């Protein structure tokens, strides 16, 4: 520990801390631009110059190591003169176009210029103009405003894992640019908009949509993946205008994935469903809520009565809230319908055999503390972009990271050791690895172990050594693996190997409330994917379109053959209009309250950010009303909090799994030739809102996904 004094106040900091760290600890503000607590130190803006006793020159607080007995003055004449001098240099070439700049009102330069700038200009020369750059559909540029702090450059290289921007040219001609003919492709690129201390990088979808001070700000939770990122949703006139990260160190730090940041555009899509509609004789007509509910209840009831047991399946997207799913389960019980949310999982045996709920099996912050990681069938950057960020930090701290999967995607994590294996090859390799570690193989593995191993004994030894060399060892089951028809066998092997290596299993779950769905028991003996393609006589869908399922065409076909399909949905897409015969407008997450349980089992409730559109109603209320109609008993909830408390009674966390499954039924003998390929994970096709974000859909990633067929080519490999 070091003791120093800043502005007369003593403070203790760790060895290696900077003067800026020490000032932050004391709550003393030192003006700065290039410094950012999550980025490496560049010390280039020189705004943070302070006076240090016995130093001949002012020193940059962000880069000056604190030393014992140091005396720092942040507001002395010498310090202020230096800071004002720097501010003048920053402003001489700046366009000062604040009135038309989107950053206006939240600009670090504007704020500091008020404190440190001069009102009169001493600069009488022509100002510099810098050409704008094409950074893709998400980020707009006004490069003349750039102060060359390189935060954006450092973010993409250090946090994004791949340098997509650089500072080219020298001196006054220095410019921030992407590589020639390139733009920015990072799945977390939007953070540079927040990081840019001026209006050089701004949000393209938000450009000129509103002035920041006109916006109402509300906290919310992202429904687009299981991470549970905290959001600030900003709106004007009951329309969501922008989404920003709400800093939450334990979950999203100060970052957001582009998916979480730009998906909001989908909330304002033109096909929003705002009135209940019923299809009669092939024609859609708008009806009153009461009529719609009655038609829905009656059609479902007649299927239940006429088509007998197993005729109905009630399916929901795993982004649906705890409240919605709890009440959907009640509704399913009332109709004798199977209820499930596992829309992309092809195997129900794994969850059944495990009994307990799949989750991260630890906290998000533990990821960085773990120093040995082995990923099986995962696509981290697409599944959970911010998990990739944590892994980059782990890798930097020296963690060993090994991946087995069938994709060429570069995770942009330094030092990752990739092994490209198709699903059948991976299963064979796992069987051999388990055997190598002395695991007794079950009968179903007999056929697999006869196949030659794709990896050598030496490679297995290297892998065990890498994991055994770590203090905290994790084996992660990715979404493609969990979605696979042999997910159960994969998990059995992973658990057996985890036991042999002293590692802990973790599940990369699919859906913002996948953990909550399992906890409230919205799980049937078949997965939602299986139920949807099974050709049931009647379906009720919550927040779902055929495109959401693992096999959209088969599902659309199955829906087309059903006697009735009731859809509770914020949107009336053509595919849903073709599939359904009753459409009930329910609120997306911004227009209702609810609760999501994230991947680490953290329960996060949110409230509505804007008023529901027209006749849109909260999903949980619609489900409660349908249940009441069916049972003839009114449902006693007046607020979503009460539903949540009923859904998640004390002690619900004991349902979270600590171990993988150890026995599978049924488990027929497997042959590698019969094992299909892994499904692909998409970045921007995963839910109804994301699919409607025009800007996200304009990205190269989305374009490639929409062009790609699922599952992918290497089934034959």
């Amino acid at each position, binding site marked *: 520990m070091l003791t120093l004094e800043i502005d007369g106040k003593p403070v203790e900091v760790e060895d290696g801390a900077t003067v800026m760290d020490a000032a932050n600890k004391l709550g003393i503000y030192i003006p700065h631009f290039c410094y950012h607590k999550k980025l490496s*130190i*560049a*010390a*280039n*803006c*020189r*705004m943070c*110059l302070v006076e240090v006793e016995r130093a*001949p*020159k*002012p020193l*940059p607080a962000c*880069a000056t*190591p604190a030393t014992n007995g140091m005396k720092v003055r942040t507001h002395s004449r010498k310090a202020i003169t*230096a800071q004002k*001098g*720097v501010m*003048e*240099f*920053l402003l*001489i*070439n700046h366009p000062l176009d604040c009135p038309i700049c989107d950053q206006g009102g939240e600009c670090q330069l504007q704020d500091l210029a008020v404190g440190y700038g001069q009102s009169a200009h*001493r*600069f*009488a*020369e022509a100002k*510099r103009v810098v050409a704008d750059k094409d950074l893709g559909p998400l980020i707009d540029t006004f490069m003349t405003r750039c*102060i*060359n702090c390189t935060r954006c450059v450092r973010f993409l290289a250090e946090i994004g894992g791949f340098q997509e921007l*650089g*500072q080219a*040219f*020298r*001196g*006054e*001609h*220095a410019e921030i640019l992407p590589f020639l003919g390139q733009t920015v492709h990072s799945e977390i690129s939007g953070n540079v908009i927040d990081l840019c201390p001026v209006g050089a990088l701004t949000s393209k979808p938000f450009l000129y949509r509103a002035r920041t001070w006109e916006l109402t700000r509300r906290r919310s939770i992202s429904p687009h993946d299981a991470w549970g990122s905290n959001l600030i949703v900003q709106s004007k006139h009951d329309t969501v205008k922008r989404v920003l990260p709400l800093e939450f160190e334990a979950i999203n730090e100060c970052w957001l994935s582009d998916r979480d940041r730009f998906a909001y555009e989908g909330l304002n899509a033109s096909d929003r469903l705002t009135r209940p509609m019923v299809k009669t004789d092939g024609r859609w007509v708008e009806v009153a809520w009461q009529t719609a509910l009655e038609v829905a209840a009656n059609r479902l009831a007649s299927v239940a009565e006429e088509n007998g047991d197993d005729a109905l399946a009630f399916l929901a997207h795993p982004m649906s809230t705890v409240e919605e799913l709890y009440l959907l389960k009640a509704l399913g019980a009332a109709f004798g319908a199977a209820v499930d949310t596992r829309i992309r999982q092809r195997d129900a045996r794994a969850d059944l055999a495990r009994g307990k709920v799949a989750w991260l099996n630890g906290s998000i912050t533990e990821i960085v503390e773990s120093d040995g990681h082995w990923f099986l069938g995962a696509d981290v950057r697409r599944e959970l972009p911010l998990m990739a960020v944590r892994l980059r930090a782990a890798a930097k701290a020296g963690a060993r990271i090994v991946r087995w999967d069938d994709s060429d995607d570069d995770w942009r994590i330094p030092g990752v050791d990739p092994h490209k294996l198709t699903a059948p090859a991976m299963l064979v390799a796992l069987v051999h690895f388990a055997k190598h570690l002395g695991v007794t193989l079950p009968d179903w593995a007999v056929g697999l172990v006869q196949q030659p191993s794709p990896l050598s004994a030496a490679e297995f030894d290297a892998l065990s050594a890498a994991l055994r060399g770590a203090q905290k060892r994790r084996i992660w089951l990715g979404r493609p693996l969990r979605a696979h028809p042999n997910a159960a066998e994969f998990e059995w092997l992973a658990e057996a190997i985890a036991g042999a290596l002293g590692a802990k299993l973790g599940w990369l779950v699919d859906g913002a409330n996948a953990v909550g769905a399992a906890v409230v028991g919205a799980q049937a003996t078949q997965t939602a994917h299986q139920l949807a393609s099974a050709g049931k006589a009647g379906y009720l869908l919550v927040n779902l379109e055929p495109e959401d399922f693992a096999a959209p065409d088969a599902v659309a076909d199955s829906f087309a053959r059903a006697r009735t399909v009731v859809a509770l949905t914020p949107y009336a897409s053509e595919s849903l209009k073709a599939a359904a015969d009753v459409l009930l407008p329910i609120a997306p997450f911004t227009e209702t309250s609810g609760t999501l349980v994230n991947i680490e089992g953290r329960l996060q409730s949110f409230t509505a950010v804007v008023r529901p559109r027209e006749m849109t109603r909260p999903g949980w209320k619609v489900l409660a009303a349908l249940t009441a109609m069916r049972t003839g008993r009114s449902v006693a909830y007046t607020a979503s909090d009460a539903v949540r408390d009923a859904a998640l009674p004390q002690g619900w966390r004991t349902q979270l799994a600590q171990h993988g499954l150890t026995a599978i039924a049924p488990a027929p003998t497997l042959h590698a030739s019969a094992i299909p390929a892994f499904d692909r994970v998409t970045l921007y096709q995963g839910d109804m809102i994301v699919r409607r974000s025009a800007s996200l859909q304009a990205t190269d990633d989305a374009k490639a996904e929409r062009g790609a067929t699922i599952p992918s080519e290497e089934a034959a490999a």
Partner: protein
Amino acid sequence: MSTLKLGQMILKDCDESRWRLADYEARGGYQVLRRILTENWSQERVIEEVKTSALRGRGGAGFPTGLKWSFMPRQFPGEKYVVCNSDEGEPGTFKDRDILRYNPHSVIEGMIIAGYAMGASCGYNYIHGEIFEVYERFEEALEEARRAGYLGENILGSGFHFELYAHHGYGAYICGEETALLESIEGKKGQPRFKPPFPASYGLYGKPTTINNTETFASVPFLLAMGGEQFLHLGKPNNGGMKIFSVSGHVNRPGNYEIPMGTPFSELLELAGGVRGGRKLKAVIPGGSSAPVVPGDVMMECTMDYDSIAQAGSMLGSGAVIVMDETTCMVKALERLSYFYYEESCGQCTPCREGTGWLYRIVHRIEHGQGRVEDLELLESATSNIMGRTICALGDAASMPVQSFIKHFRDEFLYHIEHKRCLVPPEVQWAGSDIYVEA
């Protein structure tokens, strides 16, 4: 046009035809290395000799070389590096070029000894990109040294390993700043690093590194051959040895002059043939373009060493002596210098990136008859906002000429501003220019 005029130590007895290994050996080259290795000198002994000699860095800052070497964590396990700075981009400086051209083996031997003394087994010589033939010659010299067993594994059977590589830049002045140079060797954009950490703890590829100028390394074999004590006595206390001065500008015989430290400036001027055309000496920049300008009469009282030049308010720097006679327009001269720094700023830090362009534009306006009375004060204020506020010393280097030119030649600047023309009539300036004299 050969610039070699006089050599008393490094440049002694060498020229275009006598740069090869055999020539160097004939002059006694590699004897010191052989002695150190066969007599099994301790690292401390080498460093002590260098300290005794009062050899100071010839790259500009004049930092005591022995002291710098002693900062190297010699016991650090793993790779350590010695790096030679032959980037020589400072206007007026052309001594390292001649050392590499006429006596490359002195640099190689100096670097091997430095590697030995600091426990480094790898070195790089970073050579300015605009003197490509010098780079090629250095590669040839390296090959000779390798073949003769002075480089590589088990040098002269001693068990000491040292490999040395040449690396050429592309002509950016900033790559002469030692940390930008390291970045450039690493294949990155040449931009200075913030210090601390200093290269001795975090240098090339993050490993302990010592960087010295070409002339500094080249001096090492000579100082060890004669002994630190004697080297010191060549010059004056605290300013040991010989120094090569690159004399340019309005003299009759511009070129490199290797003379003892502490030689009076007047003698150096005489060696260089005196002021051209017998004209009056107006001003001298005694240590490369970054050094403050010194009026001629003050300069005539100075001796050529770090301390005397510092007393005159300037710096010995790299030893580049730019001589200006009475035909020189000081505003125009400053405009040239300011343009150089404006073009060579790396653009990393705010005061230098924004300030160098501002300085240049103001001086340019004054020179072109658009100056305003408040401009001089503005230049003084802007330079004081740059000085000492930047990542590397280029900010200071850009400011010092401006401040010193205005300080010593204020009248000339004011005349420009008031009369929209030069105090030195154009025909006089023309008369002083090579083109008009020789054409």
